[in-house]
């Protein structure tokens, strides 16, 4: 008997019951007034208090950890609630949260179902199959288009399983790449208006926004799905020192260049 299709519903129900038990409405949990803006998920000043960003009905709490000016920092987006019909369309917050969880759980389950058929805990291998999707609108494709590559998958087994993905910045985008990706996101927005897609676009827009600044770039992106979807952006100054890995590589290249240059210099004596 296949029980996998029920798993997302169970997760959604459990998460909803957790929220209901807390007795705190989603808006109260976020702690500040909503701001209306087209792309509100920009860099928050380090001294900024947690804010809610509302993008077409999506409510996210953003916060910045660490002192940004010199040494970088971490910015997080906690997706708290979403209304698929957009802002001002009515509907209770509980409905919005329910839809959000269903979507998130569906996203998770679609990956599970392709590999496992039961309560087998996910393994990194099972998830990597999900990344091979050829659908250009797939979230993983969008993250790749933004210049990031999957580096790590962390899975925890429990009543609420935890799944986290770590992406590293591997490719600088040209202006043409940014224009192309923005067009792709505009078309994505026309096609997919569900909360999950909104959250995905919010993550990509945030990457683009931060990376276009002259001061910082997102070196690492961590996306966690459960218990609450979260995107964590590790901001590093553009002019920061090289990492150990890059420094080693750089020294190796310089060493090779010296080796190659030597015979040429010796030849030039003749």
């Amino acid at each position, binding site marked *: 008997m296949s029980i996998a299709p029920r798993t997302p519903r169970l997760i959604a129900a459990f998460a909803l019951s957790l929220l209901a038990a807390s007795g705190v409405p989603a808006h109260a949990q976020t702690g500040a007034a909503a701001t209306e803006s087209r792309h509100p998920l920009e860099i928050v000043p380090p001294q900024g208090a947690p804010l809610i960003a509302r993008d077409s009905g999506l409510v996210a709490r953003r916060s910045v950890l660490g002192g940004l000016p010199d040494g970088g920092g971490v910015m997080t987006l906690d997706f708290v609630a979403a209304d698929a019909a957009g802002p001002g369309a009515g509907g209770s917050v509980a409905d919005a949260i329910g839809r959000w969880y269903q979507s998130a759980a569906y996203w998770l389950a679609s990956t599970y179902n392709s590999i496992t058929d039961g309560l087998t805990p996910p393994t990194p291998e099972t998830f990597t199959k999900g990344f091979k999707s050829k659908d250009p609108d797939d979230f993983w494709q969008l993250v790749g288009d933004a210049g990031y590559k999957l580096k790590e998958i962390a899975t925890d087994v429990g009543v609420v399983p935890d799944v986290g993905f770590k992406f590293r910045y591997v*490719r600088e985008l040209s*202006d043409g790449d940014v224009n192309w990706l923005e067009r792709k996101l505009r*078309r994505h927005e026309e096609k997919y208006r569900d909360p999950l897609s909104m959250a995905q676009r919010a993550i990509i827009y945030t990457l683009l926004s931060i990376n276009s600044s002259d001061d910082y770039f997102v070196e690492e992106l961590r996306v966690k799905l459960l218990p609450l979807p979260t995107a964590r952006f590790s901001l590093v100054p553009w002019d920061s020192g090289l990492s150990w890995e890059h420094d080693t590589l750089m020294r190796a290249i310089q060493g090779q260049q010296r080796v190659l240059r030597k015979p040429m210099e010796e030849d030039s004596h003749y």
Partner: protein
Amino acid sequence: MTFRLICTAIVALLATPALATQALAEVPAAPSGRTAIRVVASPLEVRFTGALSEQLVKKYAMPPLQVESMLAAPAVKAFCAGYGVNTPDVVAIPRQMARREYNQCIENGVVDIVELRVGFDALVLVARKGDPVFNMTPRAMYFALAAEVPTGVEFTRNAVKRWRDLSPRLPDQEIHVLGSENGTAINAFFKEFFMEGGCRGLYQFKVFYNAADRVKSCTTVREDGVFTGIKAPIAVNFKPAMEKAPPGSIAVVPFTVYDANKNWLDLLPVDGVVPTEATIRSDDYLAVSPVRYYVKRKHMEPSLGGDGVVKGLYKFVEELMSEEAIGPNGYLDAMSLVVDDPPDRKRDRESAMRLYPFRR
């Protein structure tokens, strides 16, 4: 006429306080201010700006616009250099201002920018009537025109001569493409949409970390006669160049140029989409360039939140966003600008008239 204007202003001043405020706003700019609006525009936008200038002179007796033609990137750079009488008031470009450029503006204190969404232009592929019409893709264009193409993990000199060599779905004819010469805004667009777009996604390019190296490798066009550059202005030099070109040649031109020569040209679909006003407007067609004007609010009259650097800048906005200019039968529409849908035009007009700040 000036005397009548002064009289009107005095009467207005005496009449109501509200009108008095308005009349004060019409007081000429400070002696240090300019009287003529300075616009930096990329070549195709120069035509639109010229038409707009004529209307401003005719309707409002304003001095003609001082228009400087330059490529989009230097134009934005000049616009974003700072604010004051020595800097341009307006920039007109065939694309949206990039984030980096916007950040540069902010750094230089150019903070209150108003974006005017005027309409669209597009880069289209055309062939002479009677020549084969086939579906083109950016990938095919890249493999046809790149100086070096990836073969396995290496890059080798591109020696492809016929379209059929690239794909059995393409016609069996020699590759010959005409396009705007190197260094022009149209050429930059062609490279971005067709060359860079064609190599995007190839794994040999995904390994490049540095964007500049990747773009250079993607967009360097071969110089063995397969591509012929048309000298600027393309609107003038396109027809003679196409007449000299061998049979079966295709050309990459702005939609406005096609529109002026459509009696003897056919359009080629790109990625299966034929460029029409509808597909350009809906962004279904790939190579669409939105025509944008950016205005410095700080250069407007003090009553509009500016420092009075130049007079008549709000009139400029009003005229450019009017139905007479960008409406379906407007004078810019007559110049083959693809105008937006009525609801979008209304929204863009309202946003411009209220001087909403542009943000990226």
